[in-house]
């Protein structure tokens, strides 16, 4: 446990590794995908050793991402279930954006924005995976009709763009909400951070004596 004394564990080591694997895949997929999507960005393929390599590695990275993201789903899905609090939070989104958290309803481990990212990706990743399989020429080029492949390409592209936009929001949020990045790099947050952004989560830890990330996690606060 590398958590400094007096802090809370926001994300376990496994979670963090899983997240960054996913992130790395996503970034590579985005770069390689964009290079094949728009000629303006074809130069990105040079990062992968040229177009042939880009074309070849992209689907394999996608496979890794699928597995990796499945890990994230397993770890996060319970805390991402939609609650009435999320509606209230959404209603106060203007205050959130203005950094005026005082007036924002309390949220648990994840706020509605985070849940939106989570569920969007949970939807988009399989869509990207399955459409990707359909258009994976080398192995699956002959299994589906060309109109199906065309539709798959279109859906794949649209889904990817959606994912990229959501990813941008996600990344920005991590930059914007100070302390979030460390929560995913080193894994811990201060009680104040938890108090400010995820008060219900904080309260649940405080009442159970858990150091997080979940009230029933093993780490205990000292009496």
């Amino acid at each position, binding site marked *: 446990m590398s958590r400094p004394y007096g802090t809370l564990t926001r994300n376990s080591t496994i979670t963090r590794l899983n997240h960054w694997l996913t992130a790395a895949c996503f970034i590579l997929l985005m770069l390689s995908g964009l290079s094949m999507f728009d000629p*303006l960005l074809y130069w990105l393929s040079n990062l992968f050793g040229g*177009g042939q390599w880009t074309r070849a590695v992209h689907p394999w990275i996608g496979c890794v991402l699928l597995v990796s993201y499945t890990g994230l789903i397993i770890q996060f899905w319970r805390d991402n279930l939609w609650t009435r609090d999320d509606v209230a939070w959404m209603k106060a989104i203007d205050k959130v954006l203005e950094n005026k958290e005082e007036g924002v309803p309390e949220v648990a481990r994840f706020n509605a924005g985070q849940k939106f990212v989570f569920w969007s990706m949970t939807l988009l990743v399989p869509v990207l995976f399955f459409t990707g399989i359909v258009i994976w020429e080398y192995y699956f080029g002959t299994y589906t009709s*060309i109109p199906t492949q065309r539709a798959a390409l279109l859906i794949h592209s649209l889904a990817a763009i959606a994912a990229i936009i959501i990813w941008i929001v996600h990344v920005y949020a991590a930059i*914007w909400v100070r302390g979030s990045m460390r929560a995913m790099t080193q894994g811990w947050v201060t009680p*104040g951070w938890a108090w400010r952004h995820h008060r219900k989560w904080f309260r649940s830890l405080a009442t159970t004596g858990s150091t997080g990330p979940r009230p029933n996690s093993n780490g205990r606060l000292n009496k």
Partner: protein
Amino acid sequence: MSDLQSQDYIRRSATTMIPPDARSWEDQVAKLIDVTRCIGCKACQAACMEWNNLRDPVGEFHGTYDNPLDLDPKTWTVMKFTEYENPDGNLEWLIRKDGCMHCEDPGCLKACPAPGAIVQYANGIVDFISENCIGCGYCVKGCPFDIPRISPVDHKSYKCTLCSDRVAVGLEPACVKACPTGAIMFGSKADMTDWAGERIVELKSRGFENAGLYDPPGVQGTHVMYVLHHADKPGLYADLPENPKISSTVEFWKGLIKPVALVGIAAAAVSGFLHWVIAGPNVVQPEDEQEAEEVLEANGFPEARGRSQRTEHPT
């Protein structure tokens, strides 16, 4: 992109610049396949393999004269045979040479993401430049005629080049030269269209009232055209598309959504930046720590006490 030096391209895949345009005064070529005088001998197939040094493995019989059964990376043209019983009860054996149509508006080129992997010369020939091909298979999806095939060996896309190497030195394509009955002709598109017109008049005089030229407008015409006895029903000829055009899916994918997507992505990034500029970061305040400590203490966990004094806030 040294091949942009060439001044003979009119289209080049995945290229945002306009190809050199000055030498635009060039005749368009066309191959005219007169299905009505084709005897299905496959000389064109043989000549294509021979000239282009292509050799598939020896296959097997499939219950038809179609051999190989379909186009593949080493078979750039195939004869497709259809036994058709016409409404009069007479048999017609419709034989169509299948292969790249060299569309004026090539779907493969439109779909191709690799700059210069597919080009169209000023004479209309659509050619694959293997060096630039990345093997993604988008051309397969872009093509309204199901022509390109990706080699599983080298991951390059292949199709008829209209013997661009022969045409480049002033020769006709190999299939054209070989065709014993002159069912394949080659020349300027204007000449071929005129000649097709004469053929159609002759065919109508023989009772083929629906004889016509297949030069589908949906792809702005093709540089490989057919004379058909039943131009009203191209589907009879081994599913020649009735009204081929680049699929609207492909058009949308390669058209509108490219800029929209980039704008969307950029918009997201810019929005974030503006938010940063306007609202700035969301930072944990000392009061937050204070209150948190209080809550912890209230719950009997003094662990965090004084932490706010010991630890810097994250910045």
